[in-house]
């Protein structure tokens, strides 16, 4: 069994990079605006669905990805403006319930538009990289790269742009940021746009490898919340590392304990982490350091 370890670790990294990619947008929105954006899973689903529709109309896949992602950005902004903005002072409970509600609504809209049946975008990356120790699909490498690139993109936006400065300021101290003349509305829009963009890209790319259906975002977003808790709220690097960690853990549970316990394993880890550290493994991380 141990000789399988290199392959299993690679499997874990590949799985983890898809988790990380999804967790990234979720943690950004949570970190800046303290909104548990449950419908992030549906943004992911929409990224996949839009790409599917575009490719169906004959649009080139690599062109479809950005168009679809931009479409998702619009939906993301809409979520905030319609749902969260007016209950921003309503407290955690209202935000969580609104999030759950919007998640359901988006799933149903997708069902009405495209049906419940799974679809798939014909994958543009079919190759496999084989080494003596492990093999890995090209698309998994693409996802891995996308996760790192998206992280880099967010990092650059946050740390190398004027907008990013404003977002970080708003995340750290809302009152002081307002006194700098920064407008909350624009920061909200920008944050949701970036979060949704990453969600859209994730869906767009992963939809080329996985089936696309209205509730496809449910599992990933649950995992992303687990990552958020493990990796620290608002900690972008934590989302990446947490994603990889969770992916590897899941694979190791399935590979070395039992594939019947894969899900139990994941959430058992969550429960244990929260018992030991009620504010997550890396603590209530410094928001958007």
């Amino acid at each position: 069994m141990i000789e399988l370890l290199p392959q299993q670790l690679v499997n874990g990294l590949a799985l983890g990079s898809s988790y990380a990619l999804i967790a990234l947008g979720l943690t950004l929105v949570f970190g800046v605006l303290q909104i548990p954006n449950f419908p992030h899973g549906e943004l992911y689903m929409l990224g996949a669905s839009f790409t599917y529709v575009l490719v169906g109309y004959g649009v080139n896949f690599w062109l479809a990805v950005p168009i679809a992602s931009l479409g998702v950005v619009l939906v993301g902004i809409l979520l905030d403006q319609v749902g969260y903005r007016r209950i921003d002072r309503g407290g955690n409970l209202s935000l969580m319930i609104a999030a759950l509600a919007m998640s359901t609504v988006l799933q149903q809209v997708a069902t009405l538009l495209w049906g419940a049946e799974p679809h798939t975008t014909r994958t543009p990356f079919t190759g496999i990289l084989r080494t003596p120790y492990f093999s890995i699909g090209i698309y998994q490498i693409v996802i891995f790269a996308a996760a790192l690139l998206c992280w880099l993109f967010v990092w650059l936006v946050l740390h190398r742009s004027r907008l990013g400065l404003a977002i970080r300021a708003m995340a750290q101290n809302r009152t002081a940021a307002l006194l700098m003349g920064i407008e909350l509305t624009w920061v909200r829009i920008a944050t949701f746009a970036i979060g949704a963009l990453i969600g859209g890209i994730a869906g767009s790319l992963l939809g080329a490898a996985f089936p696309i259906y209205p509730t496809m975002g449910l599992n990933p977003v649950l995992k992303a919340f687990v990552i958020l808790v493990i990796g620290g709220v608002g900690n972008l690097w934590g989302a990446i590392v947490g994603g990889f960690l969770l992916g590897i853990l899941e694979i190791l549970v399935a590979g070395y304990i039992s594939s019947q316990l894969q899900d139990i394993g994941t959430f058992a880890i969550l429960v244990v982490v929260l018992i030991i550290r009620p504010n997550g493994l890396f603590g209530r991380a410094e928001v958007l350091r």
Partner: protein
Amino acid sequence: MLEIEELSAGYDRLEVLRGVNITVADGGSVVVMGANGAGKSTLCRAISGLIECRRGAIRFDGADISRVGTSERVRRGIVQVPEGRQVFPQMTVKENLRLGGWIHGKAKEAALREIYDLFPRLEERQGQNAGLLSGGEQQLLALGRAMMGRPKLLLLDEPTQGLSPVAIEQVAEALISIGRRGVSILLVEQNLALAEAVGRYAYVLETGRCAAEGPAAELLSSDVVAASYLGH
């Protein structure tokens, strides 16, 4: 420059300001004194637009700004140094300063230079996280950050709170030099010494109303303030 007329403001059920009248002349420096709970911070927040103005008016450069958002007020030149300094703790000193000038677009080196000349200490520490600075340094940073916004009117909410006497002196020096540059100052303070050092005209706030006003030199040396604080 700033005219506040019969201003009432507060939070939820609580009405803190009950008809306040204050005027700040062009290039003037005004102090508002008052014990805790008199409504000083609320006044600052109302002027900068963080809380809404319930009744009365705030005019700035002749225009009524009482319904204008915070961001727009900053753009028009009202910049506040908030109570407790409120620096961005996980950003560097330089980033904090850049945020001060956020409304003016990409920060120019010259603007930063000016602040560093005013507060050399900040230049030494420009790469450090603001949260690691001492209280006095944070206050200087908050001042410098506000100056990056090129204010016409600088609002200061108890800048001496929790500072050592040495730091208070530094703040006083800084404010005096800022005043000399033609920036109007509205200083809300409990510390009489700083008020005397900076203010030309003074108001005393008591339970949400102006209890007294007059030229700072006269008012502050009289017993009015001490009475308000010590209940003589």
